[in-house]
């Protein structure tokens, strides 16, 4: 069973309430904190819809080993610290960072002039 509203809709409603109803009543530090929380609600909503399958697949192919995303990332980290696999890893790292940057801030990868 899935209850309604679902998590994504609730988070959007929480962000909208903070932005439209709460923030106008506040000022200074409290208003700033409400803005941060509203933004984080939207980050979490996008995070719930995020999918790291491509990164896991690319890491599995590069490293020739199976494992969780955390384990694969740790293995790559060891190789990079030893000065290995830098050129090979750059494309997948860039694609992964771009995806995560879009979760944090939509549109971030549109323009990098």
């Amino acid at each position, binding site marked *: 069973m899935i209850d309604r509203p679902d998590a994504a809709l609730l988070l959007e409603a929480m962000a909208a309430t903070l932005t439209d109803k709460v923030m106008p009543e506040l000022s200074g*530090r409290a208003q700033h*904190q409400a803005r*941060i*929380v509203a*933004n*984080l609600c939207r*980050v979490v909503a996008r995070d719930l819809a995020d999918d790291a399958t491509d990164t896991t697949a690319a890491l599995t192919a590069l490293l020739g080993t199976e494992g969780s995303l*955390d384990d694969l*990332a*740790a293995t*790559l*980290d060891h190789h*990079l*610290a030893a*000065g290995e696999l*830098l050129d090979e*890893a*750059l494309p997948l*790292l*860039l694609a*992964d*960072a*771009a995806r*995560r*940057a879009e*979760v*944090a*801030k939509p549109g*971030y*990868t549109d*323009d*990098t*002039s």
Partner: protein
Amino acid sequence: MTRAEQIATDLGELVGAEVRITGMASVGAQRATFFIDILDGTTSTPAVAQVSASVLGSVPASAEADMLRLADRAGVPVPDVIAVSDDLPSVGAPALVVSRVEGRTVPRHILRGLTDEAAGESLARQCGEAFARLHTIGEAQAPASLPRLSHTAYVDDLEAKLDVLDNVRPAVRAGLAWLRANPVPEAPITLVHADFRNGNMIVDDNGLAAVLDWELAQVTDPMQDLAWMCLRSWRFGNDAKPVGGFGSVTALRSGYEAAGGSWRDDAVHWWSVARCAWWAIGLAGQAAAFTSGLTDAIMLAASGRRVPELEYDLLRLIADAPTD
């Protein structure tokens, strides 16, 4: 007596006159900044007092005061030092009292206050001139308490900070690997502000009025300063203007060279990667303070979700690196 009253009393003893706190400019992670009035007989002098919340990672207040005086003599616009203490009794931490310079400090206000494109270019050029004057202060003149850092030492320091983070960051690790694999020639090290960017300066209708917040200063490759000023994080969404969201690199460089600075493109690019890595690690460190329970500040929790932006910028800088 409240804590603010106690601080006002201590500041009064420090400057030798009555001090009234009139407002707070900001409460940073490292220190609090108070607007104060110094009351001496019938005169009231507006000033600013920076009181450190912690001495972690910052230079001693006396060294910061020394730098402000050095920078002033070199022709960099800075506030005047009024008084300094390395140990204010009420907080048990350093305090620095400086003159109040009027103008805009909030980055978006600075951007809105620039009337046209020429005003932004002029500001970028003034920043370049200020950097060149700052960089005339060589290693021998710079305060002895500041770290001296070669490129290699800088990367070693970043790696040590990355190793103690509570999560694995291969993108940053790749940045450090790239920095080691792509060294650029070093030049004589100078005093480097290391945090002069949109957000740490005062701008008035004539342009750059003062350079603030010298607590990260170090003695290293001067190209670090120019790279940091151009980082995407300090453009506040105005990506078409690489210098602080207000100017072109050409304007920054022309000001720097006109005032006698030697611009090295390869080193500016190397330091852009290095400072992206530094800021990614810094933001991840703020998040680690939250996840470990050292702080409940939501702003520091949010910092953790800004790390991907720096990682993306870092990897783009590597991908776009000039090939030799």
